[in-house]
């Protein structure tokens, strides 16, 4: 019961802040509401017992990417500007696309929730705490279900991004 109460509290924060973040007229307020959504996602991971994932969520998204968002908003646009009301055609088309996406995801989840629950959810919830050593071994190993190659590929991608950023920003 307690778990349910906590879950519904987190879910309510996420849904309300997600809606506010899209409907807010000021861009900096949208970013702040997005911060609450990201923190609530971290809280959801904590509730599931995925502490590492929660830590990554908070440090990468809430503490890293969102700070960069706020920084770039402050540096580029006039952050206090109120957005002009959009025309109704665009609102309608956006609503249609959103509904279609929601319907597709809802259909898939609704039809597969039973099999998913049997297969993964019960085993995941009863499993013991996933400690850091296991995650580290999985990231750095070369055996089956270990991810050294994807890890290195992503690091090359990041390196390329860094070099590209320096190239764009350098003084000529």
């Amino acid at each position, binding site marked *: *019961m*307690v778990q349910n109460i906590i879950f519904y509290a987190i879910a309510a924060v996420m849904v309300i802040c997600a809606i506010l973040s899209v409907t807010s007229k*000021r861009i*900096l*307020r949208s970013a*702040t509401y997005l*911060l609450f959504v990201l*923190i609530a996602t971290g809280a959801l991971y904590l509730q599931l017992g995925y*502490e*590492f994932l929660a*830590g*990554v969520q*908070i*440090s990468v998204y*809430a*503490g*890293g990417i*969102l*700070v960069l968002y*706020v*920084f770039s908003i*402050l540096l580029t646009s006039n*952050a*206090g500007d109120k957005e002009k009301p959009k025309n109704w055609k665009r609102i309608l088309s956006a609503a249609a696309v959103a509904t279609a996406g929601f319907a597709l995801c809802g259909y898939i989840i609704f039809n597969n929730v039973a099999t998913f629950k049997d297969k993964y959810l019960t085993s995941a919830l009863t499993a013991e*705490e996933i*400690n*850091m050593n296991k995650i580290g071994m999985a990231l750095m190993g070369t055996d089956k279900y270990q991810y050294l190659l994807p890890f290195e590929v992503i690091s090359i991608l990041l390196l390329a991004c860094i070099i590209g950023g320096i190239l764009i920003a350098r003084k000529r």
Partner: protein
Amino acid sequence: MFDFSIVTTWIDTFLKTYLPEFWVYAIEFVVVGLLVLTVYAVLALVLIYVERKICAFFQCRLGPNRVGLFGVLQPIADMFKILLKEIIPINHVDKFLFYLAPFLVIVASFLSFGALPFGKGLHIIDFNIGIFYILAVSSLGILGILLAGWSSNNKFSMIGAMRSGAQLISYELSAGLSLLTIVVLSGSLQLSTIVESQADGWFIFKGHIPAAIAFLIYLIAGHAETNRGPFDLPEAESELTAGYHTEYSGIQFGFFYLSEYLNMFIIAGIAATVFLGGWMPLHIPGLDGFNQIMDYIPSIFWFFGKTFFLVFLSLWVRWTFPRLRIDQLLNLEWKYLLPLNMVNLLLMVAIVLLGLHF
């Protein structure tokens, strides 16, 4: 050594015999929360008194000496003053963000305060990602500062906030990497395991050269993260009035002030835990009699002794060095500390792999 978990488990079992589990947890959460809040506020008062007194001695003054013996009641009087002050509404600000920002700053400092091990068995949340958790939640404070600076609708606040953002983002890297150096040595991120594994010598002695370098870098980077002199450009009073909290008054300013002092304590506490053994007494392998005597000093005194020693170092630096310029500040981080830190991390990995540590 006295283990505080005896008391806490006794309370837990006592409550569980009389109440259903839900209410036990509810009561324990509320009690622990209130206790942490009280300790937070009391520590802030102590730190403010210590800072004013030490600052006075550095400047050949006496410091507060009127209210109470040696002025010890001065911070309490100041607290009542700040609680009674009016919160002045500012025209043309984004009200929501303006009132939210101090809470973001203080919640971030509060979350990391909760993860510190204060003594044997006195540890509130002991995640297995301990150090990573502290790094993650302490990075939330930047957002509060940025929002405070922008929503104040004041160019000084804005400049202060931008400087502070740049400073915090850069120095967080150094702080994180120097803590990682010790994680390599200890093989664990969990704070309780880190403290336990320092029973036969603190990490600064066990890891010798790289640990000492990491300790120095962490002290510098941590000091910079607290926005205090010589790294106090975000609130440089001679150029920016008070930086990002210029427009705040009353208890809202109090929140920024409180979190600044407690961040200093938290940085010192983490440094004490990770490098100087936290609540672990000074043990020298081989000298059993000496170790036995050291064990008679309660763990909580060890933690607070080490932490206040590091706080004193931080105050010493604050009141002796002149303020850096922003380019000097960023050069120090990106051209000196960060490369040094990376080489140091590799050195530590080599030492651990070759087994050259104690």
